[in-house]
C-alpha cells in the first residue's frame, strides 16, 4: 500500500479522535480513552476492509462489524457518520436527551450499528451466530468483532472461542484492542490475561499480534484473516489507551474523565487539527 494512502488514513484517524474528544466533552460521556485506543482498528476496517457502505447497511450479504466493547461507541458513531451511514449532525447530539445516539448503542439506533452492546462478552457469541448463518446459507460475508482486553474476563468469550473453532468459522475475525487496562486496573493484574495470543491459539484460532495503531499492519492482518481456511482469526492489536494525546495516553483516569475546554484545545493541537 502506498505511503500516501496510509498517511491519509492516519489523518482520518486523527480527525476521528478529535471528533470523539469533542463528543465526550460536549456530552460528559465516559470511556474517552477506550474509544481512542480502538480508532485505528475501526479506520482500517471501515476504509479498507469491510464490504459495507451506507447503501448496504442492511443488506443480507454485507460484511458485519460488531463493536463488542460498546463503551467505545463514540468511536463507532464518528466513523459511521464519516462514512455516510447517517448525518454528522447526530454526533452533535450524542448522549443528550432524546438523541438517536446513546452513550452505548441501542438496538437499531442507527444504520450500521449491528448490535446493542455495552454488557461485555456478547459480541463474540452473536458474531459467531452471524458467521454460522453465512455457513448455513452459503454466503461469503465476513464477520469482524472488536473486543476489549478487559472483556476477555467474560466466560462467554471463551465459550464462543471454542464454539467458533469447532465450527471452523473461517469467516469470523476478532480484534482484541489490547490496551493493557480495564476499568480499575491493569488487565494483566486484575485477571491473568497473559499470554493472550497463546490463549487464542490454544483455543484453536489462527493468531497474529500487531501494533494496533499501525494502520498498514491492521489492513494486512485483516486482509489475511479473510484468506485463512478452516479457522477463525484472532488479531491481538497492541494499543495504548487514550492514544493520540500525550496527557491521556496510558493514563487510566481517562477511562472516565471528561476533558475541559482547555484540554480539548490542547488535544486537538497535538492531533494536528488546530
Amino acid at each position, binding site marked *: 500500500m502506498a505511503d500516501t494512502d496510509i498517511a491519509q488514513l492516519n489523518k482520518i484517524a486523527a480527525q476521528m479522535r478529535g471528533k470523539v474528544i469533542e463528543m465526550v466533552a460536549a456530552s460528559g460521556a465516559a470511556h474517552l480513552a477506550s474509544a481512542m485506543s480502538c480508532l485505528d482498528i475501526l479506520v482500517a476496517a471501515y476504509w479498507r476492509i469491510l464490504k459495507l457502505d451506507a447503501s448496504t447497511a442492511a443488506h*443480507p450479504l454485507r460484511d458485519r462489524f460488531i463493536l463488542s466493547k460498546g463503551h467505545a461507541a463514540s468511536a463507532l458513531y464518528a466513523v459511521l457518520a464519516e462514512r455516510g451511514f447517517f448525518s454528522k449532525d447526530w454526533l452533535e447530539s450524542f448522549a443528550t436527551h432524546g438523541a438517536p445516539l446513546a452513550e452505548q448503542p441501542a*438496538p437499531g439506533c442507527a444504520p450500521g450499528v*449491528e*448490535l*446493542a452492546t455495552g*454488557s461485555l462478552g*456478547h459480541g*463474540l*457469541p*452473536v*458474531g*459467531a*451466530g*452471524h*458467521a*454460522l*448463518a*453465512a*455457513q*448455513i*446459507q452459503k454466503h461469503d460475508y465476513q464477520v469482524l468483532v472488536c473486543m476489549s482486553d478487559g472483556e476477555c474476563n467474560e*466466560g*462467554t468469550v471463551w*465459550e*464462543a472461542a*471454542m*464454539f467458533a473453532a*469447532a*465450527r471452523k468459522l473461517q469467516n469470523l475475525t476478532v480484534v482484541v484492542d489490547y490496551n493493557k487496562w480495564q476499568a480499575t486496573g491493569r488487565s494483566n493484574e486484575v485477571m491473568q490475561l497473559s499470554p493472550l495470543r497463546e490463549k487464542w491459539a490454544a483455543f484453536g484460532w489462527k493468531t497474529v499480534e500487531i501494533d494496533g495503531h499501525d494502520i498498514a499492519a491492521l489492513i494486512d492482518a485483516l486482509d489475511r484473516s479473510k484468506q485463512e481456511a478452516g479457522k477463525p482469526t484472532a488479531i491481538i492489536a497492541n494499543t495504548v489507551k487514550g492514544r493520540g494525546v500525550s496527557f491521556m495516553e496510558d493514563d487510566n483516569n481517562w477511562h472516565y474523565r471528561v476533558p475541559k475546554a482547555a484540554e480539548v484545545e490542547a488535544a486537538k493541537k497535538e492531533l494536528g487539527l488546530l
Partner: protein
Amino acid sequence: MRNAFADEMLSLARQDPRVVLLSADIGNRLFDKLKAEFPDRFYNCGVAEANMIGVAAGLAQSGLRPFCYTITPFITYRCMEQIRVDLCYHHLPVTVVGTGSGLSYASLGGTHHSCEEMGMLRLLPGLTVGGPADAPELRALLRDSLNQNGPVYLRIGKKGEPQMHRDVPALKFGQSIMLREGSDACILSIGTVLPVAMAAAEKLAASGISTQVVTFPTLKPLDEKCLQMVFSSFKVVATLEEHSILGGLGGSVAEWKADHPELNARLVRLGTPDEFLHLTCEQEEAREHYGLTAEGIAGRIYGLIA
C-alpha cells in the same frame, strides 16, 4: 414430551428452511433424524448455554429461526442476561425450550429443579412465555412460535406425560382451552400438572362441587378474556402450576386481579412454596410433598367453598 419435541422440530425443519436447532450437549440420539436429513441445521453447542443463546441471536439477525434446547435451569437461570439483552432487547425471533421443567428432575436435586424461572422470565419485555401440558399442546405452540416476530420461552416436561388432547389442538399463544365444564370453582392449570387438575375436579364433583378445568398454556401474554370470564362466573378460581406461587401463573393472575377489583371470585394459588426442595424424591413424591395431588387440590378448593 421430548420425543414429540424432536419429531415436531423435524417436521418444522422440513416445512421451513429457516429453522435451525441448537442444543447444549443434551438429547443424545434424540435428534438423529433431523441431523441425518439436515446436517447443517442442527448444532450441538456444547455445555455452553450462554454462548448458545448469543449464537441464536446472530442466526436470527441473519434471517434464520433458531430453536435452543436444553435442561430448563441451565437454559434459563444461567442465560438470563443473554435472553434479556441478545433476544429480548433486540426482539429477535428465537424460541428457547427448557426440558425437564419444574420438578421433572426432582431426583437430581435442586440444581436441576426450576420452580422460579417463569417468574423471572415473564418480566422480560417482549418475551412470550408458555408451558404446554402435553405433546399436542407442545406441537401447537412450536408451530405458533414460527408466527411470532419476537422471542419465545417454552417450559416442557421430559417423557411419559399423559396425553390430555387426542389431537393437536387449535391453540395459539395467549389462548387457553376449557377441558371440563363446571359452575362452582375453576382451576387454571399451566404445564404438565394438568392431569392432577382433572383428577381434582373429579374428586370435587363427588363432593358436590362442580369444577371447571382450563388448560392455560401461555403465561405471557395472559388470556385476559378467559380471566375476565372465570373471575366473573365462579366463587373460587385456583391457579395450578409446578412452579412457585410467586411470579408464575398464580403471581400473574394475582397482579391481573389487583387491577380488576370489581371481580368477586376468590383466587387461590396452588404451586410450590418459596423454598428449595431438599427432599430426595421422584417428581410424583415431590408433588405429594407440596400438596399438588388430586386430594390436596380438592381439599384446598373444598375448604374455600363448602
